[in-house]
């Protein structure tokens, strides 16, 4: 029996509650999506709360103002550094070192990670080695680096490189391993040889994951900056902080920290931007 829609509705009695209350909305729930305005607002709130807490702590007498300056003092120091002491040059030097060393690290780690992730035998050969290497304390290599590379930039760059390259290789290999076998097999049955599959599928599929990993490891790189620039440093954020330390200018040190944090945030944002731009196909897939 087929009934038309109209029948079926008028057939039954009128439904009891024509206007039921809406779904309970909760401030915190799983899987919520926030638009960028809300994210910005929340992010700013978080930062403001932190700065306020810092202000309170600094003025609560936990330590002398000199040793634990508040946000205002640090801001002043920062302004002074940029205006009076040519801090911009230091910042540029540091960024340059980070970028060069990180590019080198990627250039070394990416082929290794790709091959390790793709081929179990290469992984078997290298993983135990690189896995141990990533535990190595980069600062312990300073004497050797000084000896081989001198006191110039290359030594600092090498230090930054050593600090991340092994982690990077291991983590990029982890990313590579995630490629679903079905993609590889599809490419094979379409006539793809090993090299073709490696590049057009394994590498290509992993690319967004690589970028994410690089974003995380770049942050690690920044934390090594201070160590790298202590040695034979003439310029750079770390060198400035070292000098400031000699005369207990904690406000300058904190200004350096703030600078690094802000640069870090900026790089993070840049990565995310490139990510959105280069990988449009990862956006807004509403499939569950």
């Amino acid at each position, binding site marked *: *029996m087929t*009934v038309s829609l109209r029948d079926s509705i008028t057939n*039954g009695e009128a*439904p009891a*509650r024509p206007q*039921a209350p809406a779904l309970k909305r909760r401030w915190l729930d799983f899987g919520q999506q926030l638009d960028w305005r809300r994210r910005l607002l929340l992010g700013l709130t978080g930062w403001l709360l932190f700065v306020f807490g810092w202000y309170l702590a600094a003025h609560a007498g936990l330590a002398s103002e000199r040793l634990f300056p508040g946000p205002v003092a640090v801001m002043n120091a920062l302004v002074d550094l940029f205006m009076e002491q040519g801090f911009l040059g230091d910042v540029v030097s540091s960024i340059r070192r980070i970028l060069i060393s990180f590019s080198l690290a990627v250039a070394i780690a990416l082929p290794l990670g790709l091959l390790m992730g793709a081929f179990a035998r290469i992984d078997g050969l290298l993983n135990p080695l690189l896995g141990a290497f990533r535990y190595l304390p980069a600062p312990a290599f300073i004497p050797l680096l000084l000896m081989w590379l001198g006191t110039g930039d290359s030594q600092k760059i090498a230090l930054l490189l050593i600090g991340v390259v092994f982690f990077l290789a291991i983590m990029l290999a982890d990313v590579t391993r995630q490629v679903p076998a079905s993609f590889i097999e599809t490419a094979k049955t379409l006539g793809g040889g090993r090299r073709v599959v490696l590049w057009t599928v394994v590498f290509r599929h992993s690319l967004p994951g690589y970028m994410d990993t690089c974003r995380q490891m770049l942050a690690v790189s920044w934390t090594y900056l201070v160590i790298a620039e202590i040695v034979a440093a003439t310029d750079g954020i770390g060198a400035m902080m070292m000098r400031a330390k000699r005369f207990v200018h904690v406000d300058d040190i904190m200004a350096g920290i703030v600078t690094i944090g802000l640069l870090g945030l900026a790089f993070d944002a840049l990565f995310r931007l490139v990510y959105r731009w280069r990988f449009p196909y990862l956006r807004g897939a509403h499939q*569950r």
Partner: protein
Amino acid sequence: MHTASGLIIEGAGKTFRAGGRDPRVALEGVSLQLPPGQVGVLLGPSGCGKSTLLRMVAGLEEPTAGALSLNGRPVTGPGRDRGMVFQSYTSFPWLTVRQNVAYGLKITGDHSSLREGAVEHFIQAVRLQDVADAYPHELSGGMRQRVAIARTLANHPELLLMDEPFGALDPETRWQMQELLLGIVRKERTTVLLVSHDIEEALYLGDVVFFLSSHPGRLREVIRPDFKKDVPAGDREALLDHPEYRRLDMHIRRLMSEEGSTQGQPA
């Protein structure tokens, strides 16, 4: 039948507004009723909003228009009274079959059901007693689907929602699962609303079939295969041979073809 009994959907609509993109009207003005103890089947072309409707009933998706109620209580969020079996065999991989089935009772603190052996009962009902201590990854798709069904049933929901529950099973398993479902529905007097893509399944299981049309999703026709009263219960062959079955089958195929020809846009 009490007025406020069973599932009542009144003018339900849903418009998705994803960040920055055009709003997409998935459902519009859908009104339907499903009395207690009956099996309702949602049928319709891909993308017509069947899953969306089911999720609205489950309380997982908020309607942007209209209202829903079950046995007189308005739907305001997910709840134990409306159990859902998802299309994607979602058994928890870290729990064994037995733990999966017991999960709902555990988290709702239903100790009496646990004591009374509800878990073992439903494991047996879906015939998984041999693999009760296995992890889901050791099971086939059909078995995992049965775990999900047993877990939902053990919770004694008033309404059982199923999104293409048997879509990816082989025919024999599928038939078995259909029988199982009907047996349980009869025994426990559970109300069921399920999504199907299969006309035979819809007509075999459904007391009432809701055919949705797409773009936007609306209720196009309500089909009641009442002729099933004349056929001995569970006799599939007799059913398939019934002239009324064949007429409805052809009718739905025609509806589908009509809807199909209006498709072809990106989802």
